[in-house]
């Protein structure tokens, strides 16, 4: 564990710049965005330097830590504001700052017409700072601060154009859904503290071996709930579709590359918990599988290009979560798929952004068609991303997704077959809807409405897309050559057993099967979408209708949570008034009534006063007489 002093810059720089831009207000409008991009770039450069420095160091000395100050120390709870940069977090740092910088550059052009561009860049830097804190925190509590910081940043960014009430509601929905996940994370921390007396990763890792199975499963379940909340996995996935209300660079950065992968990071980071409790791993796998299919099905029916890509993100992350549930070897492949997905999905989102930019913010794909002639570069970069996500051999997706399908099969027994076939089916459906997107947008006949006259986006927009396209082509090969990533992550996730042990099916057979399924998907899509009606047809299969409504996830949430919640609130408001306050007013009323009755006894006649006195005396005599008897 080498002690380094410049980990703090990862967080301090972007935080400082975001604070500066927000506080300076209008004055920073001219240079605000440039400054923010430079800060993000400098963080990336520091990351690269740290990466090479880490490679220079051997074995144990690779991971670097830095203790900033003692944050909370109460009784046996000692929490320092400490940062940890090890093999796992450096991957994330590079991904976040790299893709982040590219998106900063892209946003300079994309948001050029927006009056509040400075505020947008301030929020982006805030997000970068929070995300880096999340991945660099050395204890669950520091991670939690980054975790909610990222939630806040995504709330601000989704609700950037909050003058439209729908966008403001979407932002609220995202934050509240994340908050449900955060409950899981805080409960996990509490259980960990009561079990191990500490909340740092190292401490929990040490204690994990001695803890009871029940406690470990509980922590695992809670961590899974947190991951589901943040990475939009089943059952907390309803907010991702609406999150597209934010500007496209936001969707690219947050809802494709970085934030939604936080859940995968959390599970990988707490691998010692999941390895020690098989039930928790089973839960992770089930959630991954369900979301995988869930996202894919929704993707097939969405006409809004961004919602389609969002659904695809949900299903791809389902793959990663499923991979993390397949035991030590799965973690590495999940991270690999995460990195490759970061490249090609961000690239595709930026492509979609440049298409919308060209078609003056038209999102309905049925209004696109044959854009490849007019926007060749966007078509090319989007196409490379498309090939990558399909898993066509030379591209990145092939290396990462196939490895996941392989490990799914290798997990053995009926579970292996079941998981393997689900992942294969998923790959097929992904091929279908991605081809649908490609055909509707770039190929096919022109279906633009009169006003639209699309044009290619400026250099500042297509350059980052090109860079990401290169990434989506090369990253798979580089990370996989000589299983570089697996060995690199080995000390963190101790994936030391030879992952070649007992294959259910030889890897080559699995890849062939995957390619055939993909081919079938592509074919179906091409045949189906030769002619595309501008208005979405009504008489469609039940499944498509359901998929258009996001498989009724929103109506389910409303029916189960929202409406009863509102009724309960309204009910409580008037019971509070009637019952609780009523009781108080009742006491007042009773006192009032008895007071006025007492008043009437005083009727003004001397003789009745005398009578009261005599009755009083007689009562006294009777009482004393009884007492003395």
């Amino acid at each position, binding site marked *: 564990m080498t002690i380094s002093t410049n980990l703090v810059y990862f967080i301090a720089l972007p935080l400082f710049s975001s604070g500066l831009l927000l506080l300076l207000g209008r004055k920073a409008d001219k240079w605000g965005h440039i400054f923010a991009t430079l800060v993000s770039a400098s963080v990336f450069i520091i990351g690269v330097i740290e990466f090479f420095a880490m490679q220079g160091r051997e074995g144990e000395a690779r991971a670097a830590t830095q203790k900033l100050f003692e944050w909370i120390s109460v009784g*046996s*709870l000692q929490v320092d504001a400490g940062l940890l940069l090890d093999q796992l977090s450096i991957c994330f740092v590079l991904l976040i700052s790299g893709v982040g910088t590219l998106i900063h550059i892209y946003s300079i052009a994309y948001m050029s017409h927006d009056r509040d561009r400075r505020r947008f860049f301030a929020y982006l830097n805030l997000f970068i700072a929070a995300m880096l804190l999340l991945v660099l925190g050395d204890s669950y509590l520091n991670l939690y601060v980054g975790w909610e910081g990222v939630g806040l940043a995504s709330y601000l960014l989704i*609700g950037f154009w909050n003058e439209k*009430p729908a966008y403001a509601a979407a932002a609220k929905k995202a934050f509240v859904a994340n908050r449900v996940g955060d*409950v899981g994370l805080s409960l996990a921390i509490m259980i960990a503290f009561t079990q*191990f007396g500490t909340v740092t990763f190292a401490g929990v890792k040490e204690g994990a071996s001695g803890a009871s199975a029940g406690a470990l499963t509980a922590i695992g379940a809670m961590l899974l709930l947190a991951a589901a909340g943040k990475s939009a996995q089943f059952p907390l996935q309803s907010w991702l579709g609406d999150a597209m209300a934010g500007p496209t660079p936001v969707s690219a950065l947050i809802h494709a590359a970085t934030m939604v992968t936080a859940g995968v990071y959390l599970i990988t980071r707490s691998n010692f918990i999941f390895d020690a409790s098989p039930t928790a791993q089973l839960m992770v796998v089930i959630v991954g599988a369900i979301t995988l299919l869930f996202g894919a099905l929704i993707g097939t029916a969405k006409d809004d290009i961004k919602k389609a890509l969002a659904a695809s993100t949900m299903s791809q992350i389902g793959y990663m979560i499923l991979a993390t549930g397949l035991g030590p070897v799965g973690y590495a492949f999940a991270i690999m798929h995460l990195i490759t997905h970061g490249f090609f999905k961000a690239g595709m989102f930026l492509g979609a952004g440049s298409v919308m930019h060209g078609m003056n913010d038209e999102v309905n794909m049925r209004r696109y068609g044959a854009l490849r002639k007019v926007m060749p570069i966007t078509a090319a970069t989007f196409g490379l991303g498309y090939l990558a996500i399909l898993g066509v051999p030379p591209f990145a997706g092939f290396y990462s997704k196939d490895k996941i399908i392989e490990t799914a099969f290798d997990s053995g027994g009926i579970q292996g077959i079941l998981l393997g076939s689900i992942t294969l089916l998923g790959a097929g459906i992904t091929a279908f809807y991605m081809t649908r997107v490609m055909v509707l947008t770039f190929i096919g006949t022109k279906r633009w409405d009169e006003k639209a006259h699309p044009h290619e986006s400026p250099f500042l927009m297509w350059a980052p897309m090109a860079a990401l396209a290169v990434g989506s082509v090369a990253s798979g090969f580089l990370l996989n050559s000589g299983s570089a990533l697996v060995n690199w992550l080995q000390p963190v996730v101790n994936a030391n057993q030879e992952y070649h042990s007992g294959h259910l099916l030889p890897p080559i057979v699995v890849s062939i099967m995957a390619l055939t399924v993909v081919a079938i998907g592509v074919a179906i899509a091409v045949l189906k979408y030769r002619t595309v009606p501008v208005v979405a047809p009504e008489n469609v299969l039940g499944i498509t209708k359901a998929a258009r409504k996001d498989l009724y996830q929103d109506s389910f949430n409303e029916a189960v949570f929202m409406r009863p919640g509102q009724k309960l609130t309204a009910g409580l*408001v008037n019971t509070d008034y009637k019952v*609780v306050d009523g009781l108080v007013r009742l006491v007042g009323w009773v006192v009032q009534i008895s007071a006025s009755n007492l008043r009437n006894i005083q009727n003004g006649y001397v003789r009745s006063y005398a009578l009261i006195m005599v009755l009083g005396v007689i009562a006294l005599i009777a009482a004393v007489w009884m007492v003395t008897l």
Partner: protein
Amino acid sequence: MSILTSLLLLPLFGALVVGFLPASNAKLVKQVALAFSLLVTLVSIVMALSFDRNNSAMQFTEVRTWISAFNINYAVGIDGMALVLILMTTILVPVVFLAGWSESENGRWNVKVFYILLLILETMMIGVFSATDVFLFYVIFEAMLLPVYFLIGGYGSGERAAAAMKFLLYSLFGGLLMLAAVIGLYIISVNQGGATFDIARLSQLSIDSTTQNWLFLGFFIAFAIKAPLWPFHTWLPTAAKSATAGTSTLLLGVLDKVGTYGMIRFCMSFFPDATKTFTPAIITLAVISILYGAFLAIGQKDINSLIAFTSISHFGFITLGIFALTSQSLTGAIFYMVNHGFGTAALFLTAGWMIKRRGSSQIADFGGLQRVAPVLAWSFFIAGLSALALPGLSSFVSEFLVLLGAFAKYPVAAILGTLGIILAALYVLLAVQRAIHGETPASSAGISDLNLREKIAIAPVIAILVLLGFYPKPALEVINPTTQTIMTNAGVSDPVAKVVK
């Protein structure tokens, strides 16, 4: 004469000086009052600096006989908990003066009376936290209600007279119950080695369990009314709705803390066994308050009662923290009291400004403030974030400590409490969405942003919320010794971690 007594007498002296100023010159009155409150803040900071961190006994103590017949004396002294609460009070008062510059104009009486009442209230607020004689505490605890009664009734809005009356009656009823308990305690001390009202000696008394339960209830109900716990809370929203922003800040920010402070200082140290018998019931009440307050906050139409209900939910957290009795939860609860003071101050003051600008306190009447008054919108947003305990702000540290500490002993209560943070997100973001986001309706187009004075008023509060969030060490360092002494008095120790490394 210890610095504490001089701190107590300073605002009183200020009230006297303000008394002699010409009522016509409102500006002068306000400036003098503000100057005195700042002086008090200065003195309290000097006191805080000279406070000895690692000695958990009472400091700056001073004892003078008052009523010799009952061995009642003017005894003051502060430990970590009292110091932190006094500092909160002395910082909040100048902020309230500065923020509510025009609050005193349209009242029943002139400006002078407003500031005299506030300065007297400040003396009593400091006094109530520093009294180490139960009788002195009780006298201030009751007398404190009158300035607030006149402030709400005289300078409030809406049916302020009824709200003031309800507030006073409710607290007085609690106070009278406590009087019976104070007398009981005194009599027991008479039969056990000399009549005394001194806290330290009273906590040594051995009381049989039934009397202890009754006395505990006498104290506890008075404090549960003061810091509104679930069934006794109905006076708070009406009072908050009618009072001016400044008065409700002090009412919720400081006065209600006397309730929770009392639970720690008196209920726990005098009646340890009764505390154990009643703890499960109180924990249930606390959890109900958390969820009930949150649900009702969601359903509120008026912005002031929304903030009031959020405070009821926060007081549920504080009480949960107190009665879970682990060092994390107790320190968290005390730290929570301080943070809640600043958080509520920020909420009420910004809401007060919004109401003053818009003229109505219904949330529905606001909209799109972000475009028209960004600084006001941002400060309300940050205040809201502190209410939903966003990490990075101080309320997260305290709320997390409370829940973490409570989990060790009462897991179910802690889990339900943690669900509360979802509801917190809901009621804050719903209010923010209605008031700040959305289009700017024509009616609130002309709203002006915060002027310099208001910015200066709110800046320290937000700075404290952020600073204590990132670096809570100075506050926690002072509170920890008090928690240890309370825990040892109550004969309770922290549950040890299950897996011993």
